[in-house]
Each structure stands twice: as C-alpha cells, then as structure tokens.
C-alpha cells in the first residue's frame, strides 16, 4: 500500500500489465525518453526497452491506425494521445475502424486497444489542451469509455481496460493528475468496467458525475450541508444505469455535473434515462450543471467556464427547493 498520485497509480498499472503480458506495448508522442509530457510513462522505456515503449511520428491518426493493426494481430497496444484536443486527427481511425472492426468482420478481427488520453481543463494550458469530448465517443457504438476520478480507481480501471477485449478510450483528468494522493494497493486489482461507485450516501438528492468534476461535487455537498448521494460513473460507456436509477428512486431528485458542453453531453443521456426509468419517482426535473455551449476559453477565463462548487450548490438548492 503506497500513497500515490493519479499519475503514479497509472504508471504502476502500466508496469504491472507490461510485466505480466508481453503483448502489451505503449506507443505515442514523447512517451519514451521523456516519459510523456505528464511523466505518466516515466521510466518505462528504460525498464522495458524501446520496442515496448515507442516514440512515434507526430501523427495521431497514424498512432491509432497502426495500433489497430497491432491489435488485429493479437497484441494489446496502449497508445497515448498527448491531449484530448488532439484526438481530432485520429477521430476517423477510432470511430470508423477501431469501433467497427469486430462487427465488420463478425468477430474475426477484434481490436483490444486502450487509448490513454489526458482530458479536461483547469491547468492553465493553451488552446485545445482543456476539452472534455467524452460524449462524442459515448455516442460511437463499438467503443468503451472510462474516466477515473481518483488514483485508486485509475489503477483498477486501467488494468481492466487493458485486459478488455474491445477498444477502450481511457480518459485521465489532468486537473487531478497530482492534486490528490490516495492509498493504492501494490498488487494488481481490477475494477469492472460499467460499474459506478457511490462516493457518499444521502437521501435528499443524487448527484451524478465523473472525472475531475467529482472533486467539485464533493466540495459542493460539503458546502450545502444537505444529505446528498454522489454517484461517480467511472465508466462513461456503458454507464451504470442501474446505480443511477436506484439512487434517484431513493432520493427523487438529481443533478448531473460535467465539464463538457451542455448540449448532447452525457448529462442529457443520463437525464433522459432517469425520466424514462424513474418518472413517477421524480420530485423535481433533473438538473444539469455543465460547461457552456461555447468553446472552452483560453485560460484567463477557463474557471468561468468550468462548473465549480458554487454552481453545483446553486443547482442543489434550486432542485431541493423545487
């Protein structure tokens, strides 16, 4: 048991999976000698050699496209895309190929691939280094999408993702890469994909969130002083409808919190599902606290854009007062 940051927990998970399974290899921009721009792959090239930790040309479509080939051949590539804003050039290989290859070939060519991507705002970075595109990939059948909110979860979910026989996008909230430390077991462990975590229990209202926003939600619950249940989805697709349903049937009220823009964000899906499943239990409309339907501003204003504890508290109060 060691007290680790999210970066360290992921680094540990990678080491253990690479030790255990030589089909696992890492590829991406600056993942080698430099250990990644966030140092997530620090020391891995020294440890495993440059055939298992590969610095690639600067081309995201190439990184994912070749990783698909590696996976079709039976390996377990773990490509890194340096920032979520640079998933764009790889969009076609992810959505038209990684997500489709298994069903296109009726199972002949599965694509066991785990794409690691730092995600979200709050670190004063330049343009296209602070977005939250998880809903784009949740709307793309054939993928799984994961986003941990703590070091412990990060390790268990990453190991599960690498072992998953289908393509996974593993989003790493860069705002909490080093902000939180947590006890993380030395031994490997798996947290099943598709299962949410109840961060704290309560009976007045349910908050559903994921990734770095979970931290703002905990602050907001603190501030509000009310009895609130916080559900951390952990997996974005397939997400844990049952956990959300069960909690909302109990509380009758729900607020969904995410950094991504409001319109067609995952919050809309959760809201729609809750209405479909818990209509007669709802005492107030499900509320969404999200990024605005604007481009994430440059960093002078990024904190105005991202949901903070105050906006969540306001949503809690509005919903409880409904």
């Amino acid at each position, binding site marked *: 048991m060691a007290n680790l940051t999210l970066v360290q927990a992921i680094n540990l998970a990678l080491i253990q999976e690479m030790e255990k399974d030589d089909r696992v290899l890492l590829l991406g921009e600056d993942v080698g000698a430099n250990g990644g721009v966030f140092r997530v792959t620090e020391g891995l090239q020294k440890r495993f050699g440059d*055939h298992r930790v590969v610095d*690639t*040309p600067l081309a995201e479509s190439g990184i994912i496209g070749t990783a698909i080939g590696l*996976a079709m*051949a039976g*390996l377990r590539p773990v490509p890194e895309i340096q920032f979520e804003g640079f998933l764009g050039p790889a969009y076609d290989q992810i959505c*038209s190929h990684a997500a489709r290859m298994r*069903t296109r070939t009726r199972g002949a*060519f599965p694509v066991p691939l785990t794409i690691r991507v730092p995600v979200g705002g709050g670190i004063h970075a330049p343009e296209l280094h602070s977005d939250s595109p998880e809903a784009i990939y949740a709307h793309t059948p054939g993928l799984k999408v994961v986003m941990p909110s703590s070091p412990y979860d990060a390790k268990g979910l990453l190991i599960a993702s690498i072992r998953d*026989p289908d393509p996974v996008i593993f989003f790493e909230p860069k705002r909490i890469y080093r902000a939180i430390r947590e006890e993380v077991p030395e031994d490997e462990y798996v947290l099943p994909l598709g299962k949410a975590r109840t961060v704290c229990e309560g009976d007045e209202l349910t908050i559903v969130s994921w990734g770095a926003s979970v931290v703002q939600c905990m602050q907001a619950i603190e501030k509000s002083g009310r009895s609130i249940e916080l559900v951390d989805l952990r997996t974005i697709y397939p997400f844990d409808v049952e956990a959300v349903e069960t909690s909302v049937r109990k509380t009758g009220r729900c607020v969904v919190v995410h950094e991504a823009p409001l319109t067609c964000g995952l919050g809309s899906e959760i809201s729609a599902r809750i209405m479909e499943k818990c209509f007669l239990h709802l005492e107030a409309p499900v509320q969404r606290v999200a990024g605005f339907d604007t481009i994430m501003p440059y960093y002078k204003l990024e904190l105005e854009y991202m949901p903070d504890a105050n906006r969540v508290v306001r949503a809690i109060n509005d919903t409880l007062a409904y």
Partner: protein
Amino acid sequence: MPKTIAFKTEIERLSILDEHGNFDEKLGKGLIPDADLLKLYEAMVACRHLDEVAFKLQRSGRMGTYPQNMGQEATSLGASYALNKDDWLVTCYRENCGLFWRGVPMESILLHWMGDERGNAMPRPHHATPIAVPIGTQMLHATGLAWAAKYRGEKRIACTFFGDGATSEGDFHEACNFAANLDIPVVFVCQNNFWAISVPGKIQCSAPTLAQRGLAYGMPCLQVDGNDIFATTKAVRDAAEHCRTTSKPFFIEMVTYRLGDHTTADDARRYRDQAEVDAWKAKDPIKRLKLHLERQKIWDAKKEEALAAKVEADIAAAVSRAENIETPHAVDFFNSMYEELPADLVKQRETMQTHSLGQDPSEIAGAPHLNETPASAH
C-alpha cells in the same frame, strides 16, 4: 560552398511482357514456371468472369453496388503470387484476383457486396483483411500488422494495395511515414488506374510519377507495368525480399487502368472518352498473357474452351452458395458489437426497442424475438 547537392535519385520503370506480347527474356526467363503461369492465367480469366456475373446480379437486383476489377487483374495477382501465404495482404476493394489466389472464397466477396458482414469474416489463416470501403484507411493497419510481426520476431511482412486517389488521403502519408521511420517491413502498392471515380489522376498527383510519392520517406521506389503479370510478380518478389532482409518498406506504383465503370452505381461515359478506354483495352493483361502462352505453345483454343466451361460452373456454384446462405437473424447486428454485450444493448436486442416504456421484456406485449433470440446471442 554555395549551392551544393543535398539529394539525388532516380526511379526505374519495370516491364517484361508488353502489350504486343514482346517478352524480355533477360528479366523474364524462369521467373514463373509454366505450370504456375497457366494457373495465373486461369485465375485472371475467372476473376474477369466473376465481374461479368456480379454486374448482372446487381442489374437484376440480386446484389448491391459492386466495383468491377476488369483490367486490373494482374496487379494484385502478381503480388499475391509473389508473397508468402502468411504475409499480410491488406487490400482495398479492387483486388479480388489476389484475394482469390490467397484462398478467399468467391462467395465471401459476393456476400460483402450483397450487404452481409459475413462476407468480411476473413478466416485468419488467409492473413487477409476485410474489404476497405473508406478510402486510404487500410494502409495504416498494414503498417500495424507488419509492426506486430516484427515485434514478435516473425519473418512475416505486409503488402498493402490502394488506388491513385487513396494517395491523396493523409492516412496514406502517415502509413508510409510510420513504416519508413520505425523500420516496419511493408510493401506499399499503388494501383494507378488513372481515375478516382470521375476525378482524373492529375488531380490526385500532378508529379511525373506516383512512384515518387515514396521518395518523401526515403523509400526505394519502382514504377511497374501493372498489366504485365511478370512485372508485377518480379516487382513484389524483389520488394518483399528487400522488406524481409532490411525490415524497411518499399514503394511500388503499378500502372494499370479501370476498364469498367467505377462501380455499378457509376456511368464513366459522363467523364471519360471511349477512345481512352479502347486504347487501354489493347493493353489488357489477360489478352497479353494469352498471346504469350500461345506463342509458348502451352495454350490453345481447346484449353480456352475448357477453362471457360469450368469457370462458369465454379462461379455459378459460388453465386448459389452466396445466395443460399441462411438469411441473417434480425438481431444479428447486435451480436458482434462487443465480446460481451453490455446489459443495455442486451435489452435493446431483446426488445428491439430503444425507448424505455416496457423495455423490460416481461412488461412487453408480444415483443419480437423473445423466444427466438439467435444461439449466437447467448
């Protein structure tokens, strides 16, 4: 030291059996044993006949859009013949002849164009990838597949085919660049058939050759007469040898021509002259090889007749196998989405509904497929 020379190169063009049947003994002698040569000829004739049959199937509503291979049979066939059976063959959609030589059954290709994914369920021993409909995207997979072989210390390489139009896509560039800089053994074969649907080759590449695309990556480059089975065979054999020994890629332009429409949905008369087509008909790879075989006295009218009969029977059989495959179950498209279907998708499959009211099968009045979900589903 004012102006010095930073780089200097030249690209060769390879031709062995030309359109008039002239055969270059020095390059061609002993390249392909007669027995094989006859098989290759039969393979091209069969592929050509399948094109005609497929065209009729589409016109009579028994198949969807189909892209004819007519005129390009020698390109992928020469490659497939020159490669090892377990080298990856990563094609687009105009390489039937090479795939059949590799062992892919005709009905797979037919099934695919009949709108059935089972046509793309390539048995792994064939080391062939599914038909690539999105242009220019499969070459990256070839680079990845060859990379995996290198990673495992296998001698396997990859050979990938793509059109002149495909070389305009960014993914083409990235596939070549990864292979060249990460030392991955891939034979890149551009089938230059001068057209991308209605867009002429000069809009895709205004350079003197398409072969020189490879110079950007420092690859050895070669231009080949793509309608010459000897040249395509020799080119890929030499390239594969180079890749296997150096673990680096090789770039080949095969100059050929699409004698038919782009697909059955196209009408090439809208954008190209018949004169151009006729000029290329004279360079037909089958016609040219037949002439050569006759001159070698290993082929005659009687053999041709027998072949025609055999091919017709084989293809009729393939068509009926494709048409008589059990119709897919309405929910089959759920069943290969993931190795394990998520609960929510199971529900969508069982109810064939996406809205929630009564999504719980038990709540549904006469939900379809409940008592008949396919075996594969469980």
